[in-house]
């Protein structure tokens, strides 16, 4: 690989990323700021055979998760058969009673799944988290690839990397598959959302219209976009980048000013597709994560191809005993948190913090999961002209049409802090492109 060319132009690529507004927003001290997402040109490289293995495992997982959501809001066989305790369903903040009995267009719930994985030092892959609500991040490697191909064309001449610039086409395919008749739109909470760049970029790339809630209206059982002249255009699919609770003030949070009144009523009637389906949060809860291998076995009769990180549920006495005994070597996660928040490494706690945490854990065992700390395989980044190892994860994207399709790339996020496992952009992490080799 002519990798020197690739790294030599990192600065220019980052300048171009700035030029195209590749940023994310954060709120700090009640002030909104847009920050650049630092890009490192050394890619994560996944061999063809390794990716084929990941692809099989990811498809299997997403099919099972889709079946799980359908079951939970339908017959609840998995609960009746005591594979998943009902406490973990109804106590989950992602469970929405309003979704009971509702079947989305073509039965698809998990249109766009972002599955977070890490590779251990022994080369094995572990699933860290399933994101089935509004996973973001696919646009970053797409635009980074475009710019790297410009800055280092020779690198790409003979390396045999799968082209990842088809993400928008895949997304459009997904939207078209469930579209109930009319235009596709991307619904954004607005430019002060952390992922606004991605919303606008994907709208441009897919040809969907980027809309805010006030530009859409429900009339006579259908959803319409109102243009400047008052003309109504029917909408058939909404890739919504707002949370369930803000989607419809008539059905969810009454205070929501960014949703569309009654959109959920017409969704219930099958007159518009919502991507991803409301209520998916019940399946990507960190507590439910523990049960995913069991649901794969239950619904598909197969063993999970991809492993979870070894996880314990203090909810079960046996697991609580284990957690208390091995506390210092575990990482504890609050199931209600996301974005790298609510994650604590026991060995980093002070004596006092540990005592307080154990009291909390015993009082609210359902609130936490505990995991063994996986020793990630480090990935090199360039820092001050030198290659240095850093922790990194991979967010793989699985898009669902008639069949699930795994996008041949992914977002690799890395920690810029050598002592940290937290890779989230909101906590100062950077990103890399993910190359899947085609031969």
């Amino acid at each position: 690989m002519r990798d020197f060319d690739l790294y030599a132009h990192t600065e220019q690529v980052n300048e171009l990323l700035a030029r195209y507004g590749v940023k994310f927003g954060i709120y700090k001290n009640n002030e909104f700021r847009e920050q650049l997402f630092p890009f490192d040109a050394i890619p994560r490289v996944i061999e063809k055979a390794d990716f084929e293995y990941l692809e099989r495992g990811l498809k299997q997982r997403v099919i099972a998760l889709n079946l799980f959501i359908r079951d939970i809001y339908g017959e609840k066989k998995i609960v009746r058969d005591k594979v998943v305790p009902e406490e973990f369903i109804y106590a989950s903040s992602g469970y929405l009673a309003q979704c009971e009995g509702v079947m989305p267009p073509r039965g698809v719930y998990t249109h766009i799944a972002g599955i977070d994985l890490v590779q251990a030092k022994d080369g094995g892959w572990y699933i860290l988290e399933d994101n089935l609500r509004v996973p973001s991040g696919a646009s970053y490697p797409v635009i980074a690839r475009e710019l790297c191909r410009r800055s280092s064309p020779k690198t790409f001449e003979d390396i045999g990397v799968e082209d990842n610039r088809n993400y928008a086409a895949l997304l459009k395919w997904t939207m078209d598959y469930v579209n109930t008749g009319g235009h596709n739109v991307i619904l954004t909470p607005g430019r002060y959302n952390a992922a606004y760049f991605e919303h606008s970029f994907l709208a441009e790339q897919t040809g969907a219209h980027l809309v805010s809630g006030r530009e859409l209206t429900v009339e006579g059982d259908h959803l319409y976009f109102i243009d400047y002249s008052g003309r109504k255009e029917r909408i058939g699919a909404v890739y919504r980048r707002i949370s369930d609770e803000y989607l419809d003030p008539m059905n969810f949070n009454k205070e929501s000013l960014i949703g569309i009144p009654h959109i959920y009523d017409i969704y219930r009637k099958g007159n518009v597709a919502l991507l991803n389906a409301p209520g998916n949060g019940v399946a990507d809860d960190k507590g439910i994560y523990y049960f995913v291998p069991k649901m794969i076995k239950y619904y598909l009769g197969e063993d999970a191809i991809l492993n979870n990180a070894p996880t314990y549920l203090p909810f079960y006495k046996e697991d609580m005993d284990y957690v208390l005994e091995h506390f210092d070597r575990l990482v504890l996660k609050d199931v209600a948190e996301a974005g790298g928040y609510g994650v604590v490494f026991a060995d980093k706690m002070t004596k006092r913090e540990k005592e307080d945490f154990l009291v909390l854990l015993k009082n609210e065992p359902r609130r936490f999961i505990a995991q063994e700390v996986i020793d990630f395989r480090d990935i090199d980044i360039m820092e001050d002209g030198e290659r240095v190892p850093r922790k990194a994860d991979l967010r793989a994207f699985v898009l669902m049409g008639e069949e699930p399709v795994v996008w041949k790339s992914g977002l690799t996020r890395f920690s810029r802090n050598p002592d940290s496992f937290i890779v989230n952009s909101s906590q100062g992490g950077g990103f890399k492109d993910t190359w899947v080799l085609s031969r």
Partner: protein
Amino acid sequence: MGIISVEHTYRLYWLGRYSERVYTTAGLYAKSFDEMLDLHVDGYADFCRRLDIPNIYTSKEDFCRRYCFDGADENSIYSNLLRAYDNAVVLREEIGSEPLAYIQLAVYEMNKAKLSEAPLIELQRVTDNILAFWGITDDLIESENVRNIIKIGKRVERIDLLARLHMSREDLRREACRLIGRIDRTCLSYHKENLEEIGRLVEAEEIDYYRLVVAVETLLED
């Protein structure tokens, strides 16, 4: 999808207006800055009066820094550029990433100029990027409606500024002619009587600049 909302229509219009305001006031600022060096040391008071902005500046130096670069001064060139950016950034799928990038670049260049010891030289890059934005807008944006709304915003703003500065009839006539010839090629709803008045006013022997400003400011329907 080839249709456009009322909100985006207004944002395109204001993108045109603010980009023009930045371009024209940056040029005026550079000229006044030069004159204030040795010709009209207190010329900034006159500058403010002519542009109808409050003279909140305490000295020539204060004006030179704050009018150009102070984000807290709502009349500054910087504030107007941020307003252009605020409109552009939510129009990516209407105007495209490439045109949007030039507004983004203008903001970066303004931030660099702010820190420079020779801000006037750096300011040139800001106006270069505004010009590039207009050029690429014309070249890349497929929708004639979208292109024309931006241009109408530009024309309205330019007539407004020229009228406030009591510029020559030739300048005003040229801009009014461009406005009148283009506005019906957009989806904008406007007051026809205002447009006719603009046409009449720029032809009058003695231009009533105040009425002209009012006519352009209230041209569009709410």
